């Protein structure tokens, strides 16, 4: 399947006046402001050294075979005009939550809620990093470093070295309200590097929501450490209707009996790559990663890449990957997903499904599922499908009087349902579903 998916790529990214590939990293770094750092100083220096050693991904980089890294390698992003109305997404807006606003990647205290919330300690990275001591010192750059083996992730190292701001969240019980990070844009050319660190302590629980538009280009990292019995619900909703260039890494270490549920909704965008690197380190732990992606090549060239690496290093753990992409007008979807079961990780239950619904013949989906298993008593399965709208179901709906466009919306929602099922909270799931439905209805005729 992977081989059939090979595309020819432009192998000569040099444009007149642009740096030679050997100097690409220098040029990239020169365009960034690298903070000195307080408690992160050593981690930042280390990350920079690692980045110099590995370099930026090149055209022959196997891990970047289906996604062109050029736009992420470029020293500065193409400016993206601000919209007349850069309003926040209505998602989660009516919910009782603790809102943290970032403008061009910088925390905006005036626009945010008070950081005090029972059972939780929240700092911003820029603020905390003026100090030498912080609980996050044990984590900042640590999970990212661990996630560099066996596959190199240069942009994550770059992020650790260059991150300007983010949130540091330590949860000690179950805060009543979810924490909601809202990104906003204020300039056309912001090149945002954000980095969140989350620790959910033993038996504690956090719902972490993310929405909004991040800069003209964004590079985000979340490092999350789930202590025994901890639960993290993570929902990210990428904003619709804009051009976007985004890259993110989610590094999670899951301890004994802990649970991770991460869901990403992504609607349109130019070039997106989301990597999830999950280390299931304690027995009886659960990690679910899911995404629902809608891409319309008419809104802008659309390319969306989900790259997942789940390592099972303990017994009786369960992992699920559910990735669904709806592609039209020449949109491209990529899924690279790997389950690695280490020796001794007995009774592992690993499941992976990646599916694309192509609404026309110009769109394409490239999938590379991988299993690598070194334990004998495990249950792992993976599957990948690419299909079109089910004509039978479409006719059934229309025969009941449901107009064509509305029937397509139903069938797209039907296709995405398994991914949305991975959102545990019913209210949140319903809200995401309604949003999707509204968006699909608006775009049904295009």
């Amino acid at each position, binding site marked *: 399947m992977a081989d059939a998916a090979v595309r020819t790529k432009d192998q000569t990214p040099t444009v007149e006046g642009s740096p030679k590939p050997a100097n690409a990293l220098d040029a990239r770094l020169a365009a960034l402001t690298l903070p000195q750092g307080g408690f992160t100083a050593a981690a930042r220096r280390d990350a920079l050294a690692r980045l110099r050693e590995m370099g930026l991904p090149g055209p022959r980089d196997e891990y970047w075979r289906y996604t062109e890294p050029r736009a992420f390698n470029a020293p500065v992003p193409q400016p993206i005009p601000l919209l007349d109305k850069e309003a926040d997404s209505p998602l989660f807006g009516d919910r009782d939550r603790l809102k943290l606003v970032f403008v061009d990647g910088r925390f905006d205290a005036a626009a945010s809620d008070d950081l005090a919330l029972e059972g939780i300690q929240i700092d911003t990275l820029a603020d905390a990093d003026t100090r030498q001591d912080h609980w996050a010192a044990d984590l900042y750059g640590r999970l990212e470093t661990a996630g560099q083996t066996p596959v190199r992730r240069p942009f994550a190292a770059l992020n650790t070295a260059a991150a300007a701001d983010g949130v540091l969240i330590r949860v000690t019980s179950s805060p009543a309200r979810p924490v909601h990070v809202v990104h906003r844009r204020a300039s056309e050319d912001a090149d945002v590097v954000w980095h969140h660190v989350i620790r959910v302590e033993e038996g504690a629980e956090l719902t972490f929501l993310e929405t909004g538009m991040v800069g003209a280009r964004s590079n985000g990292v979340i490092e999350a450490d789930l202590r025994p019995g901890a639960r993290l619900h993570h929902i990210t909703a990428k904003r619709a209707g804009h051009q976007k260039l985004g890259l993110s890494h989610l590094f999670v270490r899951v301890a004994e009996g802990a649970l991770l549920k991460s869901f990403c909704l992504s609607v349109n965008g130019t070039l997106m790559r989301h990597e999830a690197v999950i280390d299931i380190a304690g027995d009886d732990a659960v990690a679910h990663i899911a995404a629902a992606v809608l891409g319309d090549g008419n809104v802008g060239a659309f390319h969306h890449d989900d790259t997942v690496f789940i390592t099972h290093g303990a017994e009786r753990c369960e992992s699920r990957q559910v990735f669904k992409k709806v592609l039209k007008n020449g949109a491209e979807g990529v899924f690279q997903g790997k389950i690695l079961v280490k020796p001794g990780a007995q009774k592992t239950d690993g499941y992976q499904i990646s599916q694309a619904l192509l609404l026309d013949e110009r769109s394409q989906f490239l999938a590379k599922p991988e299993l690598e298993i070194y334990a004998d008593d495990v249950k792992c399965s993976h599957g990948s499908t690419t299909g079109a709208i089910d*004509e*039978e*179901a479409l*006719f*059934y*709906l*229309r*025969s*009941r*009087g*449901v*107009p*064509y466009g*509305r*029937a397509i919306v*139903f*069938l797209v*929602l*039907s*296709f*995405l*349902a*398994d991914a949305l099922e991975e959102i545990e909270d019913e209210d949140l799931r319903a809200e995401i579903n309604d949003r999707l439905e509204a968006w699909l209805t608006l775009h049904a005729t295009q």
Partner: protein
Amino acid sequence: MLKIDNLHVKLEEEDKQILKGLSLEVPAGQVHAIMGPNGSGKSTLSYVLSGRDGYEVTEGSATLDGESLLDMEPEERAAAGLFLAFQYPVEIPGVGNMTFLRTAVNAQRKARGEAELSSGEFLKIVRAKAAELQISPDMLKRPVNVGFSGGEKKRNEILQMAMLEPRMCIMDETDSGLDVDAMRLVSDGVNALRGPDRSFLVITHYQRLLNHIQPDVVHIMADGRIVKSGGPELALQVEEEGYGDLLAEAR
């Protein structure tokens, strides 16, 4: 109400003629049954009338109250009052039965220029009709036909029919796979809908259903044509003798 005249239909992708000059007229308020051996084209007829892709009409016409059905989209035919109870109802995971039904009902009302039902009004009606068909509230909440037994799927078809209140109902082997109790529920549901302004075309293999739903006319279909029409006694004759003699006689 429904008038089919000399209908010729072939498969779009293949050079295969399935309906070969079928003519039939169902006046308002009547129930007509179509019986015929497997493969004679009964389902094809129901699909062509309701607008499914994959067929090509090469000759003839089909009209509902004088309006040509064949030029309409499937949803337009539905809004015009046509309904097909499928031989094999389709499962649609992730779409709630209620959401689907409400969308369908309101889409049709809108297409006909009628006011849409509020969720309260809709709920009230659907609950009452579902109860009559012994469709549980749980089934209403589940995704369309997913995890339904064969009989439940057929009852769900009748529920849709009852909610949509079509004028011309085509039922394609709604009785197959039904036990005696389910057959009675379905028949009661259909009989409750009978009236001077509503007609039925009931496709069936078995005379049994026609004991519950009394037809005005029975048609025998073979090889893409109606070969004989008569009263309810024709169904009894099929039940007793099979199609052999009837078809031989027609040839």
